[in-house]
């Protein structure tokens, strides 16, 4: 076996990565440092203005804060809703298990725009959710569920729940049933066996599932755009408008690099946390 043959096989994938990813993303760095004059465009010289505005201007700070708040709440919601489902799917011996798993995967495979569209129909002023709430007498008039935090929270939780469930299934399956049984035999109640044995042992899955959902939420474009409209902005929709409507590519590049830095920092930190947990185990 020639030593170079591995690299020859990798060449097409790496070349593709270089011209359609590494170079284009790298080029955003110089763009983000260019001055931009409205109605004129990108001018010569260098400026750090696009970055300083991101961390000082209250308009941008609000959008960044909102994006992170959404990430956090969606992560918690998917974890709380998804853990029991993952536990059931990981532990059940029923024959319907694989098809139930496929049922969790189905929304993932279904077009994202289509799924989000369903939520528009559900959350609108005269939508099904408002009809149901009024019929049940929970509220008197229609509740605003679109173009605000609640709408984005519901839609994004639905979109990213399958990811959380799938990651948790893997983690819970890796816990031998015997350790739970051992705790029970030694006198632990079901509750304390779960809280002191199963839950801590599934912590790596909780960590990676949470990081995944958080990162996906702050990166999401389609769902926040359709459920939040052009007024209720998050970072990705801000970037979208900067590039397609305002044509301020330098500012858009700075925002893109900030969002990317946030994502990469999280992925890096979670990797370190997981390694540290692994070293202690």
């Amino acid at each position, binding site marked *: 076996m020639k030593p170079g*043959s591995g690299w020859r096989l990798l060449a097409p994938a790496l070349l593709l990565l270089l011209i359609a990813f590494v170079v*284009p993303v790298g080029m955003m760095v110089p763009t983000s440092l260019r001055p931009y004059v409205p109605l004129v465009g990108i001018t010569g010289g260098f400026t750090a203005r696009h970055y300083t505005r991101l961390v000082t201007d209250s308009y941008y700070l609000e959008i960044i804060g909102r994006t992170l708040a959404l990430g956090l709440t969606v992560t918690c919601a998917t974890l709380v809703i998804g853990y*029991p489902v993952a536990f059931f799917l990981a532990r059940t011996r029923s024959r319907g298990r*694989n098809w139930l798993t496929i049922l969790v995967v189905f929304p993932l495979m279904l*077009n994202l725009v289509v799924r989000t*569209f369903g939520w528009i*129909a559900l959350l609108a002023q005269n939508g099904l959710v408002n009809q149901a709430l009024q019929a049940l007498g929970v509220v008197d008039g229609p509740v605003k569920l679109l173009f605000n935090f609640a709408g984005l929270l519901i839609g994004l939780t639905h979109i990213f729940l399958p990811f959380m469930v799938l990651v948790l299934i893997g983690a819970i399956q890796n816990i031998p049933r015997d350790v739970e049984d051992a705790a029970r035999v030694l006198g632990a109640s079901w509750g304390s066996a779960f809280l002191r044995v199963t839950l801590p042992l599934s912590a790596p899955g909780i960590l990676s599932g949470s990081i995944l959902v958080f990162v996906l939420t*702050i990166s999401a474009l389609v769902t926040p*755009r359709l459920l939040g409209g052009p007024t209720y902005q998050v970072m990705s929709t801000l970037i*979208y408008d900067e590039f397609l409507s305002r044509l301020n590519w330098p500012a858009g590049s700075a925002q893109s690099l900030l969002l990317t830095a946030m994502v990469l920092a999280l992925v890096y930190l979670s990797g370190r946390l997981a390694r540290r947990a692994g070293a202690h185990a």
Partner: protein
Amino acid sequence: MTAARVRAWLLRGWVALVMGFLMLPVVVIALASFSRTSYLTVPPRGLTLRWFAAVLGDPEYVHAIVFSVVLALVATIGSLGAGVAASFALLRRRVAGGAGVAALLNAPLVFPGVVVGVALLQFYAMVHLNGTLAGLALAHMVITVPYVVRAVTASLQGIDPELEHAARVLGASGPVAFFTVTLPLIRPGVAAGALFSFIVSFDNVPVSIFLLGAGQTTLPVKIFTAIEYGVDPSIAAVSTMLIVLTGVGLAVAERWIGFHRFV
């Protein structure tokens, strides 16, 4: 034992509720697409197929569907070639820094889709690739290759390398041994990778939307812009078509290759 019984039923009830939540928007769209009304309403009033006829009779929708299918096929074929070769190299050849290469191949999935989209928008504007099928296919391949690599690697890990080695000892050349011994054995992984790749490309919005030329559109981008202009039952009808196709495709994939093993 009764407490355990109650717990088991509570758990089942919760699972049923969550499954209902997951399916809710799907059911709502499917129902709304049959309504006689010209606005979106659930439950549907009356029953009609005219919104389906409207979609299939609309040349814009038909063009978008054809363009999406062609783009997804090109991206899938391309990413199968690059992806199968890459996962074979990473698993069966000694590559210095293989872990780093694998992480690099996955990077486009870690980066926000919108960032990949705007980065390519700027780059393609410079090299005049914007609005071209080749440019779009390359952009899609960057995000579909990782899926192929993952599915193929999962299959390849379950195959004994000695089988291919035996074929080599018996006189088969490297490519012959790969194509006649290894490739048939990893067919489920290749099929799963192809399916993922097709779906990811066909569904993509955050990258496509920045790279499409004037008069060019993919189906999800067409639906996306249609929703921004206003919601009507023909959007529900085209969505229902996608729901049925996805459901059938997934059921076939599960029967054929046990698709749940690859997710």
